């Protein structure tokens, strides 16, 4: 394996982690938003607060990891993405800023009025941010980000593939979050809440599945390179994702939310990995290959040192955080 490819894989692994953990985090905003009025929704909101409180900051560092890897290893491509996709990236950033700050503010808000304002901001921006990040992914995957010069700042992300990717991102985030929230509520013996969440998650899952199936039609026309990859080399991953997604729905119907967490993570993880496999060897589809875009070899080696340190230090710490927050005494 070449040095560039190793770094690209390490970067992409960060993206997968962000899609899963950051995604579940964003998705909780969807349930917050649809929780209902102050009285009816209080229980759901409290669960959201408890579930993501200790982990949300760590979950979002994955994005910074991906960014840093991108601009260090593939500087020109990074500048190209930033230049062309400035608008959706800015809107995603706005969402990230608003959701993080208002989540913290809501937790310590004094009055119900304040909590409602912050809560509304948290919930809406949590839904908006993955949408815009999805459109960015769609723009890259459909070959709309030129390596040199600047693509159109509007049509690069306002197109069928980008918009569908945005919707799918929102759906998968909500689906992941729903499964985790349902499991959390179940473990805390809040069976009424778990039941509500379970039903909503099933709805989200079915809706997302329909969108994904529907998305295949425009993808064929609009993003031929990606389509060729998804229906060729990445087909096993797509099939795995579909099977795991269906399996999650079945497990939810049978009220096995704890186990459904595994299949849900598999479903989302497989489709994101599938995207990466499908667009290989392109870094920016149809524009520049991974091997052509890489920066200085010494820097790539340095980055692999950073990645090794991440595996040694960050991964165990994160595993500890996830494990301890899923224990009995942290759940109640």
């Amino acid at each position, binding site marked *: 394996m070449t040095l560039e490819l190793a770094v690209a894989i390490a970067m992409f692994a960060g993206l997968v982690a962000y899609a899963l953990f950051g995604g579940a985090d964003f998705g909780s905003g969807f349930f917050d938003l649809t929780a209902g009025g102050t009285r009816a929704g209080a229980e759901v909101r409290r669960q959201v607060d408890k579930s993501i409180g200790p982990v949300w900051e760590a979950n979002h560092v994955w994005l910074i990891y991906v960014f840093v890897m991108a601009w260090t*290893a593939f500087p020109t491509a990074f500048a190209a993405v930033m230049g062309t996709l400035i608008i959706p990236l800015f809107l995603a950033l*706005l969402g990230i800023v608003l959701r993080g700050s208002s989540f*913290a503010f809501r937790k*310590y808000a004094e009055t119900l009025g304040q909590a409602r304002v912050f809560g509304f901001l948290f919930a809406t921006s949590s839904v908006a941010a993955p949408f815009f990040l999805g459109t960015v992914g769609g723009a890259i995957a459909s070959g709309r980000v030129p390596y040199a010069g600047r693509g159109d700042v509007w049509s690069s992300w306002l197109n069928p593939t980008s918009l569908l990717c945005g919707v799918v991102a929102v759906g998968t985030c909500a689906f992941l979050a729903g499964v985790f929230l349902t499991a959390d509520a179940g473990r805390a013996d809040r069976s009424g809440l778990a039941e509500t969440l379970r039903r909503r998650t099933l709805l989200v899952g079915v809706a997302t599945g329909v969108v994904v199936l529907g998305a295949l039609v425009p993808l064929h026309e609009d993003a031929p390179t990606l389509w060729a990859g998804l229906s060729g080399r990445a087909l096993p991953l797509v099939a795995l994702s579909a099977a795991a997604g269906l399996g999650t729905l079945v497990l939810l119907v049978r009220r096995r939310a704890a186990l459904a967490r595994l299949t849900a993570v598999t479903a989302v993880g497989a489709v994101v990995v599938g995207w990466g496999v499908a667009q290989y060897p392109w870094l920016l589809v149809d524009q520049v290959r991974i091997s052509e875009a890489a*920066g200085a070899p*010494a820097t790539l080696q340095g980055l692999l040192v950073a990645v090794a340190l991440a595996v040694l230090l*960050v991964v165990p*710490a994160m595993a500890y955080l996830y494990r301890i927050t899923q224990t009995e005494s942290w759940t109640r």
Partner: protein
Amino acid sequence: MITQVIPTIAEQVALLAGQATDPAGLHPAREQMALSLGWHIVLACFGVAFPTIIFAMHWRGIRRQDADALLLAKRWSKVSAVLFAIGAVSGTVLSFEMGLLWPGLMGTYGDVLGLPFAFEGLAFFLEAIFIGLYLYGWGRMPPRQHLLMLIPMAITGVVGTFCVLAVNAWMNNPTGFKLVDGKVTDVDPWAAMFNDGVWLQFAHMWLAAFMLAGFAVAAVYAAGMLRGRTDRRHRLGFLVPFAFASVAALSQPLVGHLLGSRLAETQPAKLAAFELATETESPSPLRLGGILVDGEVRYSIDIPVLGSIIARNSFTKPVEGLETIPEEDRPPVNITHLSFQTMIAIGTALAGLAALFWIARRRGRDLLRRRWFLRAAVLAGPLAFVALEAGWIATEVGRQPWVVYGYLRTADAAGENSGLWWLFGATLVVYSLMTAGAVVVLRSMARRWREGAEDLPSPYGPQLETGADR
């Protein structure tokens, strides 16, 4: 302040009017960077220094069975939850901005300067993980184990500061690459990271973080004591952060001096602007205050020889004057000079305040009973903030017109996107809102604590659950 603002505005106007060749993205990118960095640096200081300060308090609480100390540590951890949240998101903003605002810098030098950012990313990761564990660990972890969660945060504060300052020091002392026919070759990211300027710049900023966080927290309790709340908890809440800030404030002049004495060699233009040296004089005077109007120095107080002594460690060596530097390579002088001296003046005053307090205490006099001292301690919080900002303005504006000193001009790093003004406007609005939100929430937390509430449950709907909700 007024004397500082007027020349700034004049310079900005001249800048706007004079250089029509600048790319459209330059001016908004500058303002955007100044706003978002200037805002984030305050929270970064808390991120770096507050865990250590809380550790000292928490440790005292456990070791001496001190209930007041434990209570303070617990409250401070809730305050840090709010501060770290907005610090994390404003840090994310910066990672977006590097490519958004400075395509010429990141596109050309991204692989030279990027590595420290990768390590800073790791530090940020660990910090975010352990803040989660610490915040939610109250009452859920064995006390000693819980206390230990702060240690990784203190360490990542050091590493993170080092990494970020490594990039800034590299911009001041570019190394680890060669420029051949406009192409960057022979990249050695480790040499770039461990450049000559990094250690002192790191030390300077690390101490500054403790000054800012320490004086700011101490100021809150000094204000409480001024209002008659002179209980033990207030004294403790003042003393611990003030002690950290004192050590930092008293060490800072030494580090600052060492850092400054490198400039004659490394960045003569910056030194000339710091010292307001228009001409090379041997020996050079120390020029207090003063501004440059039409190339003439006005309203300054000159102390003979002292400039050479401080800047060059010599009775005779001159500070190289601006006249030796080509006009197109000179930084904006007035803002650099005045910011630099503002930082020095405040830093000296803060070190003096700290020395005064501890000397008086040794002699058995308790200045916490003196209203003048408490007033000064309250003022020290905002002053530390001003000094921090002034220092960054001085070093950043003083490096202009370069972004990578001697290699890449700031104008060449910017893009052609005039739409960045929209970004700046939106950032201004969002950051104002975020500041207001933080102030409202933190003040209401303090008020509820004063009124005897401790757990501060979230007010969602009717109280579904009673009891502690951490």
